[in-house]
């Protein structure tokens, strides 16, 4: 029984079902991120937690209390919206204390809470301004202040950084993380940006087409994605996915693939339960950082394989160099150290860390366990 329990929750609009059987349990103080592409249902789920949308079946409980059908104002939640939704005709101070005012908090208490929050978010010099006079980052902070001042059980964030430019987004991301560490509140955060998901969360729910594809810690999601969707959605540049055949060599299963020139190559797989499945077609997933130059390979790995093939393009990005080659008919991206001796068109010795490799069944799209 967690602090926030989502049990068997579904959502339908008439005959169209947009959310299927969501089961998520969040502990107090956790930072849950709902991530997925547009239309996956993450915002719908958030609105259902907030009480802005009804629940078709299942229930949601906050701190032990089932909140189905309860008005948003009574659920003890606060929300930060994508557009901040600051009341344009009120000052910053009035915006922040509006919720307290609606709940009947007397004036002196409201002012005290406002002073406290304003100081914490460093917006005390903005209290008399109207939202239209603030910059994007300032508005963000006011929106967070409005949520914080209510001291709710759960904070909800609906893509709060989408409207900011890239640099500001990174800065605000760090601020949100610091705030979470400092205050230790329970947060549910919706975003389509997988970097935000990875960096901010304690646990992630990856969603697609109304289903929760995987629910776990960032590390679990990243290292052991349950299916092809999660594997390709999380991580940038995305995981390389190669169609290969299982071949038994020297008694162990290998992945058989062909390079850009038709030369057949083999990589030893760590997945023991693929033994004896000679000829099976599977999909091999390797992240770019698992394919490096020999000197840059992970020394702690027990399964570094070498692959010699021709380099396609190189993209020096300053800190690393991204190298593209062709395997199994697909473009494969490798990430190596900036000073690796790579030249386009020339053959190169790639070091592949097969410890990090994952294998998927092409039909079910699910990961084949090791």
């Amino acid at each position, binding site marked *: 029984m967690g602090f926030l329990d989502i049990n068997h929750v579904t959502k339908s609009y008439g005959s169209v079902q947009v959310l299927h059987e969501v089961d998520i349990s969040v502990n107090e103080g956790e930072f849950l991120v709902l991530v997925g592409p547009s239309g996956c249902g993450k915002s719908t789920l958030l609105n259902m937690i907030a009480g802005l949308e009804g629940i078709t079946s299942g229930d949601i409980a906050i701190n032990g209390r089932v909140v189905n059908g309860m008005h948003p*104002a009574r659920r003890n939640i606060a929300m930060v919206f994508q557009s901040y*939704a600051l*009341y344009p*005709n009120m000052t910053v101070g009035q915006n922040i204390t*509006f*919720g307290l005012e*609606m709940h009947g908090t007397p004036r002196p208490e409201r002012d005290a809470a406002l002073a406290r929050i304003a100081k914490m978010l460093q917006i005390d010099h903005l209290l008399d301004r109207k939202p239209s006079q603030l910059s994007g980052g300032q508005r963000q902070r006011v929106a967070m202040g409005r949520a914080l001042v209510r001291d709710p059980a759960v904070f909800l964030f609906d893509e709060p950084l989408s409207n900011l430019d890239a640099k500001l987004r990174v800065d605000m991301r760090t601020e949100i993380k610091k705030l979470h560490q400092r205050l230790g509140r329970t947060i549910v955060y919706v975003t389509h940006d997988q970097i935000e998901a990875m960096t901010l969360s304690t646990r992630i729910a990856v969603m697609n087409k109304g289903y929760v594809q995987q629910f776990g810690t960032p590390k679990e999601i990243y290292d052991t994605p349950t299916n092809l969707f999660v594997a390709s959605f999380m991580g940038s540049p995305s995981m390389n996915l190669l169609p290969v055949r299982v071949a038994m060599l020297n008694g162990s299963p290998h992945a058989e693939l062909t390079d850009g020139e038709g030369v057949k190559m083999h990589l030893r797989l760590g997945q023991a339960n693929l033994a004896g499945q000679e000829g099976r077609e599977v999909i091999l997933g390797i992240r770019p950082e698992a394919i490096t130059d020999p000197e840059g390979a992970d020394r702690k790995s027990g399964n570094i394989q070498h692959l010699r093939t021709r380099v396609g393009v190189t993209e020096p990005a300053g800190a690393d160099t991204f190298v593209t080659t062709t395997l199994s008919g697909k473009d494969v991206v490798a990430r190596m150290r900036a000073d690796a001796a790579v030249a386009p068109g020339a053959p190169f010795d790639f070091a592949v860390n097969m410890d990090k490799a994952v294998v998927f069944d092409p039909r079910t799209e699910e990961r084949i366990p090791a």
Partner: protein
Amino acid sequence: MATSTEADFRTRLQDWLPKLVLSPSLAAILVFVYGFIAYSIYLSFTGSKMLPSTDLVGWDNYRTLWGLSAWQTALINLAIFASLYIVICTAIGLLLAIFLDQRIRGEGVLRPIYLYPMALSFIVTGTAWKWFLDPGLGLENTMRLWGWESFTFGWIKDRDLAIYTVVIAAVWQTSGFVMAMFLAGLRGIDNELLKAAQIDGASNWNLYRRIVIPLLRPAFLSAFVILSHLAIKSYDLVIALTGGGPGRATELPATFMYSYTFTRNQMGVGAASAVIMLMTIAAIMVPYLYAELKERPQ
């Protein structure tokens, strides 16, 4: 390469052409609007009776004007009519807009019903209401036939109450328009704002009072400007509904001007009254237009 004189001509033509194209309209406006306004102002300072004359009489016409009880009646009527008209139209328009915005089934049918009176001529409206309000034939008669013997609704024949019938008919005609303006304004409000207020615990009443209605301020302003200018110009409706009567009970500046200029052959005084009407409208419109045009991206 074209000779330098040819290129010059072409560019010069392109410079000229837009202004050339604009000029007929501009000339028309300058003459028929501003020129005529100037002429009417001039006339108001002359002793014109049936035909325009050129003998200047200074402020005489204006002095006469303010002394005429008909003019004073017209002004009082205008004040009553305009204030009631504006307030009631705004209230009804706002109410209907807010109600219609509540995800009403059949909105597509209701909205055109509220708006169709705008498509009618004021003469048609006046004719319809004149009859509806006639004691012998309209509502009063119907109520009596249905058994309510003592029901009276003879406002239109009553000297003191007739002006209110003009209000009713005018509100009937234009409140739909005000509703459409407020509805557009309501639909432009970001839904996230409303959700945030709900989470903040605002009841529907507070939500509308503290957040939605303040956000409708531009719509209120537009409505006020348009309604006040319509009120001042009201002529067709009064003519059709009451003809200015009974007696002078529903005289408005517009009807006053017409009758004094064309029927009573007091052109100078009539012109003076028209000038007063213009000044009043200008006092409202000019600041409004100025503010609107200043905002526009240049």
